[in-house]
């Protein structure tokens, strides 16, 4: 890749490259090579996302169902009107927001605790902890959803018999019979599966907090809590924000767990699930596309909100620095 024309060590100062033509030729060829190498990956990323979303925006303006393709007709913003005035959309939006807020909040606290333990664990057991914590991350979401569902289910679970001493839990407590108890189990499964990711990001952030600051605070007589709140956390704010943003965006798209555990029963449908059901089950391409576009817009709003509101520095996330 590198040209072999530059041969250092020929003795004496190398003549400065002539101004103008030489450097700009080099710059131009570098420019071309850069795009030749990175272009295919870039093009594929655009093709598999930008094109479909443009298509979704287009379809969302039509009254279009696959069972009756001949009667496709332009509907303007009517699909959006139908979706946004329907209770189903608002329920699924509320459920999605609920799952996102609960799981991300719990995961942040739990993930931070896990990161602290990994940070302070003895060298000898660190690899064991690291391997253990990667397991939930690597297990397929669907498998995790089944594991948690079966643990709570009436026909194969053990939770009811283990926790029958808790008020309200009996041998026939049907966790998937109501909205809130279903959502509780969904959140548990999501939290178990995704906390490791957040805790690894936080661990990397923790490792960046300079030891001298901790030492100085300790010498000054700061308690453990004071050091945590005044030294550690402010110094890893960037890492916390990036972890929060990634997890929030991820949580908002929740689909697999809900599909497996409840199938959207008892008002546990999320926005992703609604879009899926409209398109794949009901073949309402127009309405499904409108829901998809709204989901996409929600994610954009969350992302912009984080970047503007919390000043998340994404150049770090992009790995530019």
């Amino acid at each position: 890749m590198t040209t072999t024309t530059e041969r250092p060590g020929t003795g004496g100062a190398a003549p400065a490259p002539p101004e103008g033509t030489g450097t700009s030729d080099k710059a131009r060829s570098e420019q071309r090579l850069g795009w030749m190498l990175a272009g295919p990956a870039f093009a594929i990323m655009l093709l598999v996302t930008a094109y479909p979303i443009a298509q979704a925006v287009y379809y969302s303006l039509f009254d279009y169902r696959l069972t009756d393709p001949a009667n496709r007709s332009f509907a303007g913003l009517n699909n959006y009107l139908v979706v946004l005035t329907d209770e189903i959309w608002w329920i699924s939006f509320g459920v999605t927001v609920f799952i996102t807020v609960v799981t991300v909040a719990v995961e942040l606290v739990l993930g931070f605790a896990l990161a602290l333990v990994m940070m302070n664990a003895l060298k000898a057991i660190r690899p064991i902890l690291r391997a253990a914590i990667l397991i939930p991350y690597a297990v397929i979401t669907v498998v995790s959803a089944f594991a948690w569902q079966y643990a709570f289910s009436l026909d194969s679970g053990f939770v009811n018999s283990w926790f029958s001493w808790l008020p309200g839990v009996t041998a026939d407590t049907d966790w998937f019979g109501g909205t809130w108890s279903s959502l509780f189990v969904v959140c548990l499964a999501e939290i178990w599966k995704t906390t490791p990711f957040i805790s690894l990001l936080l661990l990397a952030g923790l490792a960046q907090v300079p030891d001298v600051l901790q030492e100085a605070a300790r010498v000054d007589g700061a308690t453990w809590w004071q050091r945590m709140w005044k030294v550690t956390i402010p110094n890893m704010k960037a890492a916390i924000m990036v972890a929060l943003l990634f997890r929030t965006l991820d949580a908002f798209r929740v689909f697999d767990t809900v599909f497996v555990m409840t199938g959207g029963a008892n008002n546990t449908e999320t926005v992703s699930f609604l879009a899926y059901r409209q398109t794949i089950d009901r073949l309402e391409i127009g309405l499904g596309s409108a829901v998809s576009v709204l989901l996409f817009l929600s994610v954009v709003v969350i992302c912009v909100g984080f970047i503007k509101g919390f000043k998340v520095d994404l150049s770090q996330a992009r790995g530019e620095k």
Partner: protein
Amino acid sequence: MSTRERVLWIVAGIAIVIYALFPVGWIVSLSLKSSADIANGQFLPTSVSWENYTQILVGDAAELFLPALRNSFGIVLIATFIACVLSMFAAYAIARLNFRGKRLILSTALAVAIFPVISIVTPLYNLWRQIGLYDTWPGLIIPYLSLTLPLSIWTMSAFFREIPWEMEQAAQVDGATSWQAFRKVIVPLATPGVFTTAILAFFIAWNDFAYGISLTSTGAARPVPAALGLFSGASQFESPNGPIAAAAVIVTIPVVVLVLIFQRRIVAGLTNGAVKG
């Protein structure tokens, strides 16, 4: 560190291991329960039975599970390979060359990574049916690239940035040809990054459910997670819980093996791309 503190951290460490392994242990335990034992209300089986495994590997459910397993391995490995090759070139350019558009490429990767998969599923479903990619391997490999490419590009760029590229020139000064310098010096330095990226990309594609369930309709291309999701609805056997648990254990084995062997690299790869300062 005082003894009390030390004991405290060890207890916390044990708690983490239990936290991480408990649901996995449970699904393994469930998969070993016979159909009469499924409803015993206990964590452990009364007696170990291989009934569920025989059912999905050679019995009634084999025709659903085995093709799905083959599809999963084939599609995921091909998608991982393509993503790694493409992002290797891209990451090399990003790490080593100075060209306009570098930021654009990295930002696009970020935007694609946060894109809601379901928003892409609707239009793809329609498009794939029109052009004949619905329910085929390429019909899943292409969208899987949208899952794996962004992460691969970041992770690999982060790794490539840390390679001491001057060593290539140093080797040439010592008389190596540029090809030798590349092969003997740069390739060994770059391999760990490429390898780590491949593992992470594999995890992501292996985990996919939304594309798998929306863009396939038969055993021709349906991957395991989607097949698992549909097992529950089918009433071909009495209680699907046992066979599903057994299938879940089988698809979990590859990722657990990867985690156990490459844990250090996986952690480096996960944190390298996302938080760097």
